[in-house]
């Protein structure tokens, strides 16, 4: 199982990581899509380009809210912008963390094999957000809006859809189950 280093905030490593993502996006567009972004339309890679632009637009105003993971090659593997918010549970507003944006690296998004590819980055990022929140004594309930293609991924790690809008919640219990599941995965040789 691949291991990742969790990073809080926008460090130089994260900033340089995004510059490297941008270089890789241009390289992959030339190599796999004949230099034309239109040929990538509809792919996860196309979504990754859009996310990079969106995150880069927001990163200066939200630098304290950036969370990311770095892989064993010291490459930025996944990045997110989080926000502290509230959700209504049984008529009471409960604090929670919203994952506003999340994106995997271009090499983890592109369908073609890449030596840099490392599975588990986004899962590790979600794990880091839960552990950080718990260590600060804050709510470990997570909320996000998943695009339709992403919903199965979040369901598998324990998120539940709330109202059909794409809003999904990971309850405190589900977060505990998710962490336990990851511990079991780490303690098994199945993914070595």
């Amino acid at each position, binding site marked *: 199982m691949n291991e990742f280093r969790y990073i809080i905030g926008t460090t130089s490593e994260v900033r340089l990581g995004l*510059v490297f993502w*941008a*270089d890789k*996006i241009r390289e992959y*567009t030339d190599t796999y899509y004949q230099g034309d*972004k239109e040929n990538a339309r509809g792919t*996860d890679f*196309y*979504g990754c*380009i*859009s*996310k*990079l*632009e*969106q995150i*880069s*637009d927001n990163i*200066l*105003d939200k630098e304290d809210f950036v969370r990311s993971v770095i892989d064993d090659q010291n490459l930025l593997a996944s990045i*997110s912008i989080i926000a502290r918010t509230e959700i209504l549970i049984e008529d009471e507003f409960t604090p929670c963390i919203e*994952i*506003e*944006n*999340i*994106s*995997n690296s271009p090499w*983890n*998004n592109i*369908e073609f094999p890449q030596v840099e590819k490392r*599975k*588990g*980055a*986004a*899962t590790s990022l979600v794990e880091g957000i839960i552990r950080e929140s718990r260590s600060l004594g804050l709510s470990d309930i997570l909320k*996000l*809006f*998943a*695009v339709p*293609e*992403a919903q*199965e*991924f*979040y369901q*598998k*790690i324990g998120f539940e859809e709330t109202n059909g809008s*794409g809003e999904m919640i990971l309850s405190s219990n589900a977060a505990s189950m998710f962490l336990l*599941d990851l511990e*079991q*995965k*780490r*303690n*098994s*040789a*199945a*993914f*070595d």
Partner: protein
Amino acid sequence: MSQSSKTYQPTPEQIAKWKRIDELESSCATGFLSPEEQDKNVEKFFEKDYIDSQLEKVRAHKEKLLKKLQSAEEYEQLLLKEKHNRG
């Protein structure tokens, strides 16, 4: 962790679930974006060199912060003057 210390025996269901999570991970985008917004972002990305585009953004951000700093300094001086006047 060494190989020998990995003692947990996952169920076939767990192995299948973990494999599926790994497969699905490339589609993990969050935050609603219409296809038009997505196209606009992609268009913007390819319009300019990334470093040039970020430099433009960071300079505008710096300008905004300098204005805020100036305003905070003016307020600080105003309060200090007021405090001094009150003896």
